């Protein structure tokens, strides 16, 4: 029979759960509202744009899992999108399309596998690649690590664009089944949000965030930094892989040149503008930059504003995003959200689990500001 204390706890459990998962719940609901609004409006062109933005959101959350939690910059994550996208193409192209130009082994060439297991298998392949290349790279810190990830991107891009039997080389690979709509993309955003949040609240995530704040203190506290970084890197690559898979099933075609510096730049811009230090920041960045891209796209096409047609030249889109990114970096380096998650508006519930960074910072007056901005619930 449950004692009074236990009964109390059981009654409070849903509230505590809501409190603990407040950030991903609110963010998921926010995305749901956007999707519902677009769905209700029946605007199919807008629905396509929102789907693309949601796919970007999965990628940026993937990028955030590593960069946000470790504080180490990475330029190589487009590699994992590429591995995921080609992986899923090998699994889900119809055998007729495969026999047309690819030389795959029998188990791939003769079959078309179901979509969801294929997506997960392809993302796992990306995670495995991340594990292998991560072992040497995760020992590095700072810009050496960033440049090493860039080298990985260069290696895989070169390799895939010459691996004609499997990738058609530099040519575009057509015929991938198109099934990703707004709802499927939304579902993956929700999965990514919860996975990223559970990870960052887990002991692994907390250890890595501690190393982000102070590498030497974290090492002194017994945290194996390369191992913790590797955990984040692999999880991050899994969701980048999913991002690549969704992109492939959204566009129906993939090409090596699309997994190079432009996408790397756009995803990093989203993360930086929103704020790389929180999950909320990552998602806010996607919403802000995607909206901006939509507006600039319509301007590049020529927008009819009453009496005149406003238009901007080709290239203005990237120019604006790059300019905005530099302005944010100069004036607000922690991005729009400044490291904050969605605040809990209902006062104190249950036991408060603190971020180790916050506890440590309480004893260090210089660092108090940083921990407060982190806003761990």
């Amino acid at each position: 029979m449950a004692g009074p204390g236990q009964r109390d706890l059981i009654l409070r459990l849903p509230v505590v759960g809501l409190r603990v998962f407040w950030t991903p719940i609110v963010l998921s609901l926010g995305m749901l509202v956007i999707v519902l609004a677009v769905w209700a409006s029946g605007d199919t062109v807008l629905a396509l744009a929102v789907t693309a933005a949601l796919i970007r959101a999965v990628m940026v959350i993937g990028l955030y899992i590593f960069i946000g939690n470790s504080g180490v910059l990475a330029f190589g994550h487009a590699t994992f999108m590429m591995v995921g996208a080609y992986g899923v193409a090998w699994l889900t192209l119809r055998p007729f399309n495969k026999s047309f130009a690819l030389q795959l082994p029998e188990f791939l060439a003769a079959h078309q596998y179901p979509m969801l297991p294929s997506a997960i298998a392809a993302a796992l392949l990306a995670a495995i690649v991340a594990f292998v290349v991560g072992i040497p790279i995760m020992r590095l810190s700072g810009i050496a690590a960033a440049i090493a990830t860039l080298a990985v991107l260069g290696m895989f891009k070169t390799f895939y664009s010459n691996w004609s039997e499997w990738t058609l080389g530099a040519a575009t690979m057509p015929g991938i089944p198109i099934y990703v709509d707004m709802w499927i993309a939304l579902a993956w955003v929700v999965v990514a949000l919860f996975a990223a949040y559970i990870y960052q609240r887990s002991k692994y995530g907390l250890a890595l965030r501690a190393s982000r704040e102070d590498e030497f203190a974290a090492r002194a506290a017994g945290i194996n930094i390369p191992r913790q970084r590797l955990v984040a890197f692999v999880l991050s690559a899994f969701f980048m892989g999913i991002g690549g898979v969704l992109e492939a099933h959204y566009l129906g075609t993939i090409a090596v040149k699309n997994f190079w510096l432009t996408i790397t730049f756009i995803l990093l811009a989203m993360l930086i503008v929103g704020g790389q230090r929180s999950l909320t920041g990552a998602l806010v960045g996607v919403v802000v930059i995607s909206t901006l891209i939509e507006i600039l796209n319509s301007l590049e096409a020529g927008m009819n504003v009453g009496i005149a047609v406003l238009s901007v030249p080709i290239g203005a889109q990237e120019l604006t995003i790059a300019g905005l990114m530099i302005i944010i970096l100069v004036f607000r380096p922690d991005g729009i959200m400044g490291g904050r998650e969605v605040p809990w508006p209902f006062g104190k519930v249950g036991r408060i689990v603190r971020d180790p960074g916050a506890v440590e910072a309480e004893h260090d007056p210089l660092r108090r500001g940083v921990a407060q901005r982190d806003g761990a619930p």
Partner: protein
Amino acid sequence: MTGLVQNAIDALALGSLYALTALGIGLIFGVMRLINFAHGDLIMIGGYALIVPSSAAAAVAFIGAWPAPAMVAAIVFIVMLFALACERLAFRPLRRANPSVLLITSFALSFFLEHLVVMIYGGRVKAVSIWPELLEVLPISGVRIPYLQIVTIGVTIGLLVLLVLFLKRTPMGIQMRAASEDFSTARLLGVRANRVIAVAFAISGLLAAVVSLLYVSQVGALTYSMGIPLVLFAFVATVVGGMGSLTGAVLGGFVVGIASVVLQVALPVAMRPDRDVFVYGLILLILLMRPSGLVKVKSIEEKV
């Protein structure tokens, strides 16, 4: 024997371009811990400055049609101006930021410059020819060595000697070395931060302009992303050579150039397109075996 000579010259000429690019990046890294992604775009801008700004398909030579001394001077001046503007507008406000923030800013700046060029010149490849006589082959029987390779190697050696003299013999050069060693102590001793950093950017711009002229004469075409491969291989060179060491940057540049040519010759024909996989892989190999690069620099190690 002739094949060996030819490959050696190829390797040295390619290595020279990488070394000059890596040196331009290394100089700035020394004084402000910035790995400048936009360095490749300064090289690109030097190329585009040769032609009349227009989005028409055919490029019309502008500065590119001037006599050689005026052309070199004008291109060096323009690229230096861009380098100084980048420093003043993007990097000076971030001087206290950590190296990762600086790196990502330079990445954004690189996109900014590239798409500025796309807006003005359009995104298509443009043909441009300067000094076509340099592509002629040296009249030595057996080997095929264009004059351009000899010029590239000669110019590189000349610039390296001048740079060493500048760093060792002039007050500004000595101040720059002091600033690379320990910036805050150097400032306490009267080194002017803004001036040293501005001079470093100016020299970096000069090196970018020279690479630009040599590279454009070789490839004969302009694209807005033409600086990217150069800058990526120069990054490999800086890491392989040892970050923060100018000797390391030059050494790294030649290592990358030599490795490219050796791989091109030694790899089986079927694998030759994958040469760059191995060149990029050099980074991982070096970092595994010797994390600080070939030339180790004390002042780079993080202090607790």
